[in-house]
């Protein structure tokens, strides 16, 4: 009885492994193909049948990719925008989240509902008026339309922060208040240290958001190539006046997502479990 059950269990595990491996093939194949292409010379790209292992490894492709996409310039641009957006997002959302979680001011419920309702508006509805607005105040061709909104509390993060801060016991605040701390000190010295998982999550999500954003750079800085972000530069690489070779294009693409991949391996849990990781390691 037990041996036959064990045998059945074993068989199930083996079937599971086989299925996992089968599904892993299409998941992995495009990335591997991209990697081998990035290392081929241009003639090998056109070979049939497809060649999986390059005859000679053309590491120089990455150098060419860096040069032809002005990689470091765009990398710096994107990093700069991301850094400002992260600071703004953490600062503004901590403030607003703190207000919503701790103060019983008039209209608190109304503002909270407005924040939730505003999350449901499709982006395209606001794009045209906002574009005209930024153009009218002379911010077209600058990064301001991408950075300023982060400093003014994006609704989803506000909602998240409010929910998280509500789980921190008020007794911590009270203790600090008795010691003579004012609200700002309580927020910075008591609440912020207890909100590390939330801040980590917001930092990573904001970084990822800026790195992936395509529509905003397309709208606001497309006419200024020295202000392009990496996402825009990579997307436009293929549609230049001169056609780019695919092996160079793939090399540039790999360089573009490498930073996200590196961050992923350091903060895996925040990516894979997202909000789950935040609540699991949060204050209980």
């Amino acid at each position, binding site marked *: 009885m037990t041996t036959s059950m064990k045998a059945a269990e074993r068989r199930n*595990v083996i079937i*599971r*492994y086989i*299925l*996992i491996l089968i*599904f*892993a093939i299409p*998941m*992995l*194949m*495009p*990335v591997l193909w991209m990697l081998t*292409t990035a290392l081929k010379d241009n003639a090998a790209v*056109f070979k049939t*049948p*497809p060649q999986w292992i390059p005859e000679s490894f053309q590491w120089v492709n990455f150098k060419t990719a860096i040069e032809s996409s002005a990689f470091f310039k765009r990398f710096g641009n994107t990093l700069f925008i991301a850094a400002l957006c992260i600071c703004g997002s953490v600062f*503004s959302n901590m*403030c*607003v989240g703190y*207000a919503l979680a701790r*103060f019983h*001011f008039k209209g608190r419920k109304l*503002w909270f509902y*407005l*924040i939730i309702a505003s999350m449901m508006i*499709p982006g*395209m*509805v*606001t*794009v*045209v*008026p*906002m*574009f*005209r*607005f930024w153009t009218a105040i002379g911010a077209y061709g600058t990064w301001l339309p991408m950075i300023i909104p982060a400093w*003014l*509390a994006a*609704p989803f993060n506000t909602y998240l922060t409010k929910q998280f801060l509500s789980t921190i016991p008020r007794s911590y605040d009270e203790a600090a208040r008795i010691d003579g701390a004012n*609200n700002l000190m309580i927020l910075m010295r008591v609440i912020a240290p207890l909100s590390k998982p939330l801040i980590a999550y917001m930092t990573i999500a904001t970084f*990822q958001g800026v*790195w*992936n954003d*395509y*529509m905003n750079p397309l709208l606001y800085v497309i006419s200024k190539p020295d202000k392009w972000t990496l*996402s825009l530069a*990579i*997307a436009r*690489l*293929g549609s230049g006046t001169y056609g780019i070779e*695919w092996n160079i294009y*793939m090399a540039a*693409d790999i360089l*573009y997502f490498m930073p996200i*991949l590196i961050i992923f391996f350091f903060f895996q849990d925040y*990516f*894979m*479990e*997202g909000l*789950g990781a935040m609540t699991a390691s949060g204050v209980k």
Partner: protein
Amino acid sequence: MSEIANSAAPLPKKKKKKSFQRIFNSDNFQGYLFMIPTLIGLPLFCIYPLVTSLYCAFCDWDGINAPVWKGIKNFRWILVKDPVFKQSLVRTLEYALINVPIMLILGLALAVLLSKKVRGIKIFRVLYYLPTIIPGVATLVLWQFMFKSDVGLLNGLLRQIGLQPVGWLTDEKVVLFSLSIIRWWTVGGAMMVFLSGLQSVPGDLYEAADLDGAGGWQKFRHITIPVISPILSLQLITGLIGGLQAFNEASIMTGGGPNNASRFINYDIYLTAFNSSKYGRACAEAWILFIIIAILTVIVFKSTDAYVYYENE
């Protein structure tokens, strides 16, 4: 209140300072002080553009001169005369309505497959999740190469097994399917959501079912699905909202082609506004999209509500 203020008249200076401090420290004042980012941000980035775009939807607006009120002219043009809008709408709905259920089923199936804690499972979870980490633009560039009719891997493999190559992005009958493949490839995100859902199912429910002699499928159907149904319903709604707003695929990979077969509504709005400078008409289109999304969300919400099981109720 005023009487108290009057009775304190002999000590005006001290009282004034005290009441200022009281106001400053009140929840009302402090609350609004910390709310400043939202007090500016919400009206500026949400209420103002919403009202403006609604007003401009009824106007002719070239973006340079002031909008001119024209009543329902834009809506009439879009719904009656516009040669591409209806097609855009149908293609977008097709794309979203076909992909959302497939993503749910695929995501749930993979989550079940990877839910058992066997050796090396963590590596496989990372592997399945990998396509989701790659930024959208990088993914689209990669698949643009995969789909290339001459040098693309997919046609290369087809040729190798003796089949006709497919015009993945150049055949208007195939292009939506091709773009769907990219969505399926990034199913890892949904999979992770379901995986954490599966882990939250209380183990004693399964044990009780074992005692009753329930089989694997029965347990899945009558325990797993009901417990994770709130997650399923939320994924359905967010998937639908996301799918209806597809933009990058059209903008980066196909340019809306071939023959407008992948001209999603969002991309159509973008072209109307920023290529044709018909800002009023673009606003009207955006509002039509908004209304469709709202209606679909309500329908999904209402129709799944009967099946969704909330533990606390």
